[in-house]
């Protein structure tokens, strides 16, 4: 294993999991939350010409997904460097 110690490996995996779970929480919030279960509530809010809930379901969720993946890519690259497991 390329890690300095088994503790290092454990810490790396823990940080990875916590990042992943945070991002998945947002993923579920914008799609299942704003787009589906809370859609009727949010539809009372007008967002330009859209009802807000409808906008999340047909546009906003998709933009958020893209941002989530790119945050993940950036943070993971940092994490790989920190624990020196990045590939050259």
């Amino acid at each position, binding site marked *: 294993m390329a890690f300095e110690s088994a503790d290092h490996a454990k810490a790396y995996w823990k940080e990875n999991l916590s990042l992943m779970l945070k991002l998945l929480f947002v993923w579920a919030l914008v799609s299942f939350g704003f*787009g589906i279960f809370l859609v009727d509530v949010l539809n009372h809010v007008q967002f330009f010409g859209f009802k807000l809930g*409808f906008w999340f379901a047909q546009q906003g969720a998709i933009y958020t997904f893209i941002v989530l993946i790119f945050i993940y890519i950036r943070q993971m690259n940092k994490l790989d460097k920190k624990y020196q497991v990045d*590939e050259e």
Partner: protein
Amino acid sequence: MDIQTLTFIVVGLTFALYIGIAIWARAGSTNDFYVAGGGVPPVANGMATAADWMSAASFISMAGLISFMGYDGSVYLMGWTGGYVLLALCLAPYLRKFGKFTVPDFIGDRYYSQTARTVAVFCAIVVSFTYIAGQMRGVGVVFSRFLEVDITAGVLIGMAMVYFYTLLGGMKGITYTQVAQYCILAFAYTVPAVFITFQMTGHILPQTGFGATLADGSGTYLLERLDGLSRELGFAAYTEGSRATLDVFAITLALMVGTAGLPHVIIRFFTVPKVSDARRSGGWALVFIAVVYTTAPAIASITKVNVLDTINGPDQQGVMYENAPSWINNWEQTGLIQISEEARAGEEPMFFSNDDRANTNVDADIIVLASPEIANLPNWVVALVAAGGVAAALSTSAGLLLVISSSVSHDLLKRTFKPDITDKQELLAARIAAGFAVLIGAYFGINPPGFVAQVVAFAFGLAAASFFPAIIMGIFHKRMNSTGAIAGMVTGIVFTLAYIIYFKFMNPTAGPDEWFMQISPEGIGTVGMLLNFIVANIVLKFTKESPAEIQELVESIRYPKGSGAATGH
């Protein structure tokens, strides 16, 4: 120039391009053939994944479905994009680190079991065939409408094309053709969308345009007008929808998880050089897919207004048949628009609604293909849309063919029956298997079983209930053993299949009240997936956890260093 000549020229040019690329990117080894030598840059891989993913159904049917379902159509938008978050965060990097050629390879090795491998091969082949039949049908429809060749000839031309460049180039050829196909299909999808958005609202961007006010000076928002029209004509309000909330949730989740479990999408992540590239190509794939998927709802709502205004007239009183624009006649000939005898004879005006005033019916499938004609756009735009539809169908078929051929030559032949064959023999077997797959696919394209459309929807449910949990537990639950995983997969598949078969074929008239918790057969994969997780964990409690060397293997795929080249051994 007339539409037909223009279409021949545009489609012909794209075909010449695909053949050129295939010859340039010939495959020399199984490594080239299965995973493009593992040397595809992440942005190119993202683009190829997008083309691989967006099928004839996405291109031709999705906006139409949204147009007719309104808010309920959001399940496709969120479901088919949200799956990429799961892929990029939970699957792609680890499967890339594992470094094998196929999904059954992972399942078989991780669960140290030939049975698990065989179950996975079976699922991969079933899922891929149901998909490919639908693609070939899409090619047939485009050819018959725009080139006026019959559907059989259309299917044969499409199949010959796909076979040629899959045979020659394998994954390497497919990847670079898909990059070209993505550019063509995205261009063909967005150009007409920009035109119609501008006509309707004065906005250039479809994404903002469908939330803008109408260009007629009335100051009404487009969606407000569409809601009003829908109510007036007896449809559900466009932005509200009518399905049960739990059902919308179940379908969305099943599509997301199904996307992440589809073998032809997963293998794309085996083609990049490094683990970090696998993450990156997931991100790029979603960017390229979003270009089309955020445009689709705009096309859906704008064309819906256009269709209603053309058939019912701006004052919603109906238009006489003799005054109908030519696109109505064109599509009436294909059977996708139906008009009653009385309206055709001029005894009453045409009317399209959801109550007893209706005498005209419009099929959802024409929304994208006819949108340039409906909006009076120039002929070259119509030709472009035809080329885009063909590109979408070909790119997806090629990806699926590769899954089928590698399942046979690699998973069955090399890993199960004849481990001692050489690389060259395996490559030959892969090409022969692709040939058979093409013939079977063509047969289904020409003689589609009546249930193709439903079957494609099952593919997601089946992938969600079988592959996804097995792969996720393979990575995140290192004590999970083969007995648990197999029991989970079998439960998931059997339950999902049984529910779909019962409610689609044996009792198709049953509605939400008879369904389990109002969940439709389209969404039942979500329940199948949960059952899979639960059963696997219960079985694990009563059996021995996975052996130490497997747990070490799982440890090693969690860390990116030393992913090396993808190998078959």
